[in-house]
């Protein structure tokens, strides 16, 4: 089954997901009217209005908070061999009534939590959707895959000969942009086209870089994969983002 939400390995963006999103909504416009069309319009309006919250990093030399953009993130990763400490896996206090195994994504702070018993959670650093591609809602894990196949979208195949090579699907492996594991997010029984997956660009954790995919370090997605079961609730929080819920 073709994947349609995969990240662009060259541009660090989930262009495939964008295509999937457009296809999804064009399908809605073609096939349905009434509340679905209205919902799609609300979604589109929300997307246009969404302003992502960026990450800042403290520079002890200048004693100033500075923008943590892709260039800065790459430089940091080259210098330290890892992302900033805050984005590394950690068990934290998490006061919630949600049951253990629930996934909570704080897109503004670039954290993903999986709820543990006794008011604790495992916290992971994540990369999320870039401007206009962030989303919020309540979905569930519809299925999971180890070493998922990545199929580049048609427009990527058309412009990139390297991608064309994988038009029929790139087998799972260390060079696969989805990394070693993927959790497929569904709304009810319907594929939302969004996924939580690994990455070949570990420096991008903490940034708004995708078209809606949630990306983790490869070690982290493997850890998360073991902790989360199919059917688990996934709550995505992102200030000002379009609501997926109800669409």
């Amino acid at each position, binding site marked *: 089954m073709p994947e349609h939400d995969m990240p662009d390995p060259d541009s660090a963006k989930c262009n495939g997901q964008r295509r999937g999103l457009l296809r999804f909504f064009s399908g809605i416009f073609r096939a349905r009217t009434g509340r679905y069309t209205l919902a799609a319009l609300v979604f589109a309006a929300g997307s246009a209005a969404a302003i992502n*919250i*960026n*990450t*800042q*990093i*403290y*520079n*002890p030399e200048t*004693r100033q*908070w500075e*923008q*943590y953009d892709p260039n800065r993130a790459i430089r*940091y990763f080259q210098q330290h061999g890892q992302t*900033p*400490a*805050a*984005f590394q896996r950690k068990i934290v*206090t*998490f*006061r*919630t*009534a*949600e049951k253990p195994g629930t996934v*909570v994504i*704080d897109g*503004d*702070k*670039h*954290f993903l*939590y999986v709820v543990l018993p006794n008011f604790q*959670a495992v916290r992971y650093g994540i990369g999320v959707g870039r401007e206009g591609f962030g989303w*919020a*809602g*309540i979905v569930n894990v519809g299925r999971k895959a180890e070493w998922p196949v990545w199929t580049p979208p048609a427009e990527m195949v058309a412009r990139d000969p390297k991608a064309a090579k994988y038009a029929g699907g790139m087998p799972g492996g260390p060079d696969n942009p989805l990394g070693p594991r993927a959790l497929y997010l569904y709304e009810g029984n319907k594929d939302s086209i969004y996924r939580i997956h690994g990455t070949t660009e570990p420096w991008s954790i*903490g940034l708004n870089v995708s078209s809606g995919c949630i990306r983790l370090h490869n070690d982290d997605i493997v850890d998360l994969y073991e902790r989360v079961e199919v059917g688990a609730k996934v*709550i995505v*929080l992102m*200030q*000002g983002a379009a*609501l997926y*819920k*109800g669409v």
Partner: protein
Amino acid sequence: MKRKRGGENGMTASIAKAGPIAKSAPWIALAGTALLALGCSQGTETAAPQGMAVRSAVETAPADLQLLCAAEAAKVYEAPSEKILPLSSQRSGTASYDVELDVAGKRARCTIDESGTAITVVDA
């Protein structure tokens, strides 16, 4: 008599009975308090994050507090939790946050303190 002359409180009175070092104790205490206050004050103003700390450009409520607000709204509005989603949040005081919620299509506002106690949940 010494107690009365030395001052209205017992401490000053007993110092009046003591030697010169003890007599300077109030000044030492006063100076210590002032230094402490100065230190605390400067510590607040110049508190620098350790190392290369990161933060969000905009301060939002911690995710768990946002979800506690959603849980409280579920009780108040008698709505299923799957129909309630925090939309935005901001600090509303030194120890509290305002969280805007979507409650089955309607907007509500919750104020919650840092301890996780929802103070109010009202229509927005």
